[in-house]
């Protein structure tokens, strides 16, 4: 058992009270003297040429202080990589999706800004649109970007091993098509920015960003100002889930409007704008062919993906690469082939969303494994145990597993779900009449990157200032977008310095003050920033040690920091209070400041977006989920009364925070599986409000959620910790879909699992059975 004083304890989050009390200040809560309000004009067409924009009347409206259009940004484009910069702050020449930003206005109040929008005249030449990714790739389809022929935003083709030979060797081969729909991030704080341009070239911006340093670089490039002059201050964030990573038109426009008007400008999107035209998850069509031995051993995967990228590339290359990486995990796949197209369509841009490409592929692969188990009469648990990867395993593509508790998560989930009592194979139930409510259980496994290793700057840095009264401030650029990292990072500081959690203050990110950081994506903060914080805290302690040794008359190695005391190991009476030590240290000699610093990069080279060879991360988490479903066989409604998450997260830095993540994963996963869907017609979202879109409410979530942490103490992450954020949402979908099969014997390969689809599947099955029976008689 670990002997930590702070870590591993169920400590409530430090940002809990202010958020619960409503006193946490989000971007929209802020205002500056003289501030203007900005509004954005959007395209009413999914695809059209902009012939002319006339802003004269808007500019003349009293109260309007600035109007901007695409030309104001020159040729500036942004994107993940140099070759994928295909987004403009405001449309240039063409609009490529309904809701794309065309112009923006700053005025003395919101009403005036809205009125001004109506006075802007845009002449469009409507172009044929393509909103289906398969159609977009066909010859003759409307083309979105002149420099990207064939509407190909990203193409990846790779393989390892000998797939054809493996299929020849296989006893059983199956091929299926799976579709994962368009879902939204579902954060409750709309995107917002408050920007202040100070002539000649200084930008201060408060923006809701989970990864603020993307925008910091974007703004420097866009406005041609040095990074030292970009001050991005991060207020509290009302959720991100991948939808607040980069810079977006709202940010660029706020700055440009401020530059033009000479006043601070705030833009807060409406929920309708967010839901209808902001970023969302990649819809994906996954065609998967898998060969196995009779005993269920996987021999090969051959996978073809068509992803709907929407009108821009965003972080698309990472999504496409992720889907490949996690075709290789969590099961042993000796041979693998992969080809993916990310198609441009006239839809809002697809980006990362909790799981970034991995949900879609694991939904396909894990449901198909269940199909195979069913076809071959194999036990679903055993087929997973048989194929599970293990510590020391290296995938065909070269991902290295340094710690793996997958088997333990399977055992744990099976036990917690009382699997043996509740599970009966569908084959056994098949001939019994279906009751009004049919029940079933399902299981699925996952793996995830513990800190995505992207290209470019990938290192986290922490600076710890120890104050003379024995408290500390932690400066980090790793943002807490609601996941609780502020608490966990502060706990690491408290542990190493032997102080209390409440003695550590973590100010929010401020690019002028906090060290540059990649951001909160790819489940990286606790493990990667955690290591930087650990090193920084040790550095600070190191600076205190000589003074402690002197005062306690002991060797530095013998000194311990704990419970706000500094003492000689084995002789607790030889102690001094931590705050006496800090007071004495700052005054020692001619005085000093105690500032610890630490950086931690990644232990693996950058992802190879082209071949997918090598690691995607320095460490991988593993997990298993079990779902219990009830299917109303008359209405098709599926409910999930109970769900188990068992996750190998290396080490639970804060078990309470982990539970929160697990429950959040279940909520997100249940939403993605059953409830959420952007219903669209010709590129227009018919459900751009939270009533119609249908995020699950608390009544729609499992009444019972069990969270199990399997600790494998990873060699890479801080204190052995791996991720426990996105990974836990990866297998929620297949666990539920597998459970539905176990309940009613139908496979849902097209998400979401709407009641109507379930009912239709049941009908089709009945009709088929009848036809077969008639054919036989």
């Amino acid at each position: 058992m670990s002997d930590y004083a702070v870590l591993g304890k169920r400590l409530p989050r430090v940002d809990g009270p202010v958020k619960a009390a409503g006193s946490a200040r989000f971007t929209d809560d802020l205002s500056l003297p003289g501030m203007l309000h900005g509004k954005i004009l959007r395209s009413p067409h999914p695809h059209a040429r902009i012939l002319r924009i006339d802003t004269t009347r808007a500019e003349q409206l009293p109260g309007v202080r600035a109007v901007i259009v695409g030309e104001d940004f020159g040729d500036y484009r942004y994107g993940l990589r140099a070759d994928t910069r295909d987004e403009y702050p405001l449309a240039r020449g063409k609009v490529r999706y309904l809701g794309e930003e065309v112009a923006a206005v700053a005025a003395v109040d919101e009403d005036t800004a809205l009125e001004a929008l109506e006075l802007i005249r845009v002449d469009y030449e409507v172009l044929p649109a393509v909103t289906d990714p398969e159609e977009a790739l066909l010859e003759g389809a409307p083309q979105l970007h002149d420099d990207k022929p064939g509407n190909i935003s990203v193409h990846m083709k790779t393989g390892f091993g000998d797939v054809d030979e493996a299929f020849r060797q296989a006893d059983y081969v199956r091929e299926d098509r799976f579709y994962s729909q368009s879902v939204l991030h579902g954060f409750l704080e709309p995107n917002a920015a408050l920007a202040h341009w100070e002539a000649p070239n200084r930008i201060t911006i408060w923006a809701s960003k989970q990864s603020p340093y993307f925008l910091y670089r974007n703004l420097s490039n866009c406005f041609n100002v040095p990074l030292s002059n970009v001050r991005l201050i991060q207020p509290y964030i009302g959720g991100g889930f991948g939808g607040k990573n980069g810079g977006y038109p709202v940010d660029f426009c706020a700055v440009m409007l401020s530059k033009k008007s000479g006043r601070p400008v705030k833009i807060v999107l409406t929920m309708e704008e967010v839901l209808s035209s902001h970023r969302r998850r990649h819809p994906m069509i996954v065609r998967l062919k898998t060969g196995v031995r009779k005993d269920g051993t996987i021999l090969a995967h051959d996978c073809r993906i068509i992803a709907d990228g929407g009108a821009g590339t965003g972080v698309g290359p990472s999504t496409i690469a992720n889907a490949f990486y996690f075709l290789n995990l969590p099961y042993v796949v000796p041979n693998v082939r992969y080809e993916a197209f990310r198609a441009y369509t006239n839809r809002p841009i697809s980006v990362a969303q909790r799981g970034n490409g991995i949900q879609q592929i694991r939904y396909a692969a894990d449901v198909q494994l269940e199909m195979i188990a069913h076809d071959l009469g194999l036990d679903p648990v055993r087929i997973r145990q048989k194929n599970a990867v293990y510590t020391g395993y290296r995938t065909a593509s070269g991902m290295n597993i340094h710690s793996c508790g997958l088997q333990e998560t399977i055992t744990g989930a099976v036990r917690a779900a009382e699997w043996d009592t509740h599970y009966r194979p569908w084959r056994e139930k098949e001939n019994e009449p279906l009751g009004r409510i049919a029940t079933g259980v399902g299981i699925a496994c996952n793996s995830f990157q513990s800190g995505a290793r992207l290209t470019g700057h990938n290192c986290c840095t922490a600076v710890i200032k120890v104050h003379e009264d024995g408290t500390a401030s932690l400066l980090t650029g790793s943002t807490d977008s609601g996941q609780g990292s502020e608490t966990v990072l502060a706990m690491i500081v408290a542990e190493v310095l032997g102080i209390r959690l409440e003695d550590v203050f973590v100010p929010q990110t401020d690019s002028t003050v906090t060290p540059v950081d990649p951001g909160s994506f790819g489940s990286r903060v606790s493990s990667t920033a955690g290591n930087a914080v650990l090193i920084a805290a040790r550095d600070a302690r190191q600076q205190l040690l000589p003074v402690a040794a002197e005062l306690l008359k002991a060797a530095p190695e013998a000194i311990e920091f704990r419970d706000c005391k500094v003492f000689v190991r084995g002789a607790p009476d030889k102690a001094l209070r931590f705050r006496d030590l800090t007071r004495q240290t700052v005054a020692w000699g001619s005085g000093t400041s105690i500032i610890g610093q630490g950086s931690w990069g990644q232990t693996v080279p950058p992802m190879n977006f082209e071949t997918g060879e090598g690691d995607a991360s320095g460490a991988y988490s593993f997990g298993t989920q079990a779902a219990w479903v009830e299917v109303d066989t008359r209405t098709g409604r599926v409910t999930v009364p109970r769900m188990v998450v068992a996750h190998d997260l290396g080490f639970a830095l804060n078990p309470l925070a982990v539970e929160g993540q697990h429950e959040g994963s279940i909520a997100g996963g249940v939403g993605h599986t059953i409830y959420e869907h952007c219903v669209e017609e010709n590129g227009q979202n018919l459900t751009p409000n939270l009533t119609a879109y249908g995020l699950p409410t608390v009544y729609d979530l499992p009444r019972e959620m069990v969270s199990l942490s399997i600790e494998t103490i990873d060699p890479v992450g801080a204190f052995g910790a791996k991720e426990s954020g996105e990974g836990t949402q990866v297998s929620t979908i297949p666990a539920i879909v597998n459970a539905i099969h176990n309940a009613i014997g139908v496979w849902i390969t097209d998400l979401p699992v709407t009641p109507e689809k379930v009912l239709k599947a049941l009908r089709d099955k009945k009709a088929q059975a009848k036809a077969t029976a008639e054919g036989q008689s």
Partner: protein
Amino acid sequence: MRLKKFEHFEPRTLSEACRLLKEQGDKAALIAGGTDLVVRMKYGVTQPQCLINLKKVEGLGSIALVGENLHVGALATLTQVRCSDLVLERCPMLAEAALAVGAAQLQNMGTIGGNICLEPRCWYFQQGRSWRQARPDCFKNGGSVCYMAKGSRRCHALYCGDTAAALLALGAKVRLVNPGGERIVPIEEFFVDDGMRHTDLQPGELLAEVILPAPLPGQRGTYLKYRKRGALDFPIAGVAAVMSGTTAAIARLRIAITGVGSSPLVVAPPPDYPSEAGLTPALIDLLVEMARKQTRTVSHMEVSASYRKELVGVLVRDALEKLGGA
């Protein structure tokens, strides 16, 4: 989503309210809880130049017995309705229906009058201005198409009020007040099967109260609602059923359905059905079939017409089985 400017009146009496309503004509809208109206105003699909707020009209929220009948004032909130002892004692299914509306906050704000008069809904109507600019206006927004039923010459917006089904099944009447006086009509005559104008309210007329007859011996009822999620959502189909007498010998049986057309509808056993035979499986089958037939719904808002019909059948069966104690 900002509100356009409007005038705000707070009449103290019904007659004053009616007079204002008549005077202001089309420019005016009545506001009770505002949970439906304000949403539409923010969308810009309803743009009244003046609001006549019923909040201060004295006595409009009372729930009281008048002789044998239970009078529920239009301004009674859904929370007051579902917590009222009189309602719970005499027609608990009305409380059931009030509880099925939206969520607790909406029940606290929303009134029964507003719930009855709830504007029909459609994914192409209740949308913001910029959303609507992307396509020609539909009938309900002043245009000449219905996106729910292509080629249709009428508006197919759905009436989705929950309590209406319960009130119809209970045989309620409504008291309507106008500048010249008042009229009391059975609630089924109040609703009109027209997505554009779904009530029979005349210019200057408003709904003052709902009148529920005394329960018959052995009366029991239930309201079953099918919605996408466990809270917040409007009915995809809602079915109310009331039966009196005994299972063996039915005195009166009435079913009402909401959420499936531009007005709620009533399903009653054919006049010649043998009531002394009781609530037999055959009668249940018959009513299920009648209900499905009477549901002439268009494909709409995430579910197809045939699925909606299917749900109606399931709900009617469940409701009747529940009443029969099966």
